[in-house]
């Protein structure tokens, strides 16, 4: 090979190297531009419907009068149930697997099982809730059923986030605590949980933001798509001031409302869908933003 040949080869290799780099940048930009197109499309179509009455009205047969009050309240209440069930269960399971579990067959099964659950399609959780909560436990198509279905759905996410956060805590922290005579529970309570809070919080928020956007399981349990009333108020002026009747009320949620409006042929309803879609998207993006920020902050702050 002459000098010239070698130079030519190098030039060709470099050419392909830079060509690929350009393709790589473009591929990444495709993702960005879809996100951008999606948001601008929603805004262009939905902005005109974006008024206060849209938020304060019930769904209606007339697109101009329809609003998202009941789905907004429904989503909020469902999220309350979901958070209330999934956070303690998920964090507890994560702590168990990282701090308490011995290396045996049971632990192995639980671990494999959680990985597998994370890959189960969301609609299957809907079928589970339909068979188990709606008909077997007879909770009906209620807020409780919906909240439980979504709680089970995001449980693996919360468990995995908790485990990852706990695993990042160095061993010497635990040993220092034991050396001072602390019991396991004291160590977990005073050291493990506070130090892994950032990671756990990130996972919890990510999980809840996923739950807010989930439509399939809620449709599967047979939630109604047209609800023009609110659930029973959880607080009242008479004793005992707080009640849980709302848990058993029928409901609708934001993504179902979007789905309902998209499925109609009239363009006016599509505008409503876009406007509700903006709100839904904003909720999930804000939650994700908060989660990413918390992760970033904690990663920066903690140096063991």
């Amino acid at each position: 090979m002459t000098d010239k040949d070698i130079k030519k080869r190098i030039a060709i290799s470099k050419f392909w190297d830079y060509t690929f780099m350009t393709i790589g940048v473009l591929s990444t930009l495709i993702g960005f531009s879809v996100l951008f197109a999606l948001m601008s499309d929603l805004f262009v179509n939905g902005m005109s419907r974006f008024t206060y009455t849209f938020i304060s009205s019930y769904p209606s047969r007339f697109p101009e009068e329809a609003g998202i009050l009941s789905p907004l309240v429904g989503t909020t209440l469902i999220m309350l149930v979901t958070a209330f069930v999934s956070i303690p269960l998920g964090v507890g399971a994560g702590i168990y697997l990282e701090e308490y579990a011995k290396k045996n067959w049971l632990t192995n099964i639980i671990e494999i099982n959680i990985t597998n659950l994370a890959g189960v399609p969301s609609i299957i959780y809907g079928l589970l809730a339909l068979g188990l909560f709606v008909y077997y436990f007879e909770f009906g198509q209620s807020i409780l059923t919906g909240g439980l279905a979504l709680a089970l759905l995001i449980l693996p996410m919360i468990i995995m986030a908790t485990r990852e956060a706990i695993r990042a805590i160095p061993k010497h922290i635990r040993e220092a605590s034991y050396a001072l005579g602390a019991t396991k529970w004291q160590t977990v309570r005073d050291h493990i949980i506070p130090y892994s809070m950032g990671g756990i919080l990130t996972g919890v928020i990510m999980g809840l933001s996923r739950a807010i956007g989930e439509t399939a399981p809620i449709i599967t349990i047979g939630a109604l798509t047209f609800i023009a009333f609110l659930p029973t108020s959880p607080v009242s002026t008479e004793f005992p001031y707080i009640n849980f009747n709302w848990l058993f009320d029928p409901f609708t949620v934001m993504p179902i409302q979007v789905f309902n409006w998209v499925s109609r042929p009239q363009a006016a309803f599509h505008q409503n869908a876009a406007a509700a879609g903006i709100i839904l998207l904003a909720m999930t993006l804000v939650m994700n933003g908060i989660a990413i920020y918390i992760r970033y902050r904690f990663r920066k702050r903690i140096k063991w």
Partner: protein
Amino acid sequence: MKISIYRKIKEGAVEGVFLLCGLSSIFITVGIVAVLAYEALGFFREVSVIDFLTGTEWTPLFADKKFGILPLVAGTLLITGIALSVALPLGLTVAIYLSEYAPHKIKEIAKPVLELLAAVPTVVYGYFALLFLTPILQKFFPEMSGFNALSPGIIMGIMIIPYISSVSEDAMKAVPMSIREGSYAMGATRLQTAIKVVIPAAFSGIAAAFIMGISRAIGETMVVAIAAGMMPNFTANPTQPVQTLTSYIVQVSLGDVPHGTLEYKTIFAVGMTLFLMTLGFNIIGFWLRSRIREAY
């Protein structure tokens, strides 16, 4: 030593509570399998398994009921195929770019933004596929129907890019720097290193990412339910409306099907099929992923 007994009881109780939390995941799996199996068995008492698995007509909601799952499976595989032909090349290219080329600062921005792609509610993607992408595609394929497999397939592909790129990138990151440096020292470019060294070394992780992408695409519901129409066509033509396993369950759930009827049981039989398909892919993916750690 009164305190120590009290302590022991408390410690034991706390551990018990945590154990119960850990076991909850097993109860969920048992619950899923039990519910699906119970209702699906009821279904198969009335419809033979062979007809179910080999029939090419799916009309359980009509007067003339036919229970052949193949049109739904074909629809699912068609859309999954379209989604993967978008997601695999793009996801892998993004992963190589981010892991081998991109400077730290770009990575810091690009990764969270890509993650947002996975965070957008699927119902919003459905809206986008039906009302934005389909009209554009119809300009290129005038004969394309308003509901079709192509548009939700493409959108689903873009939706799963972050899943594929992040798992593949993790696998590439696990390849030791020394191996790359060996390649650079021989005069290889970044592209040559990526193709000849990094990808083969991270192969099982990348394969796991692909498999998990497949499993996600099979289980995806709303994009398809909104934009693919709800017609169980036994076709491979992406311009035609199709129905998937998931969107059939949605269709039945939206209607008023009474509890305990054969129509009601069909969604569990379909759900069982879906569950087993994704389970198969998940197990392969899990196995491939556990091989990453063995490599070095």
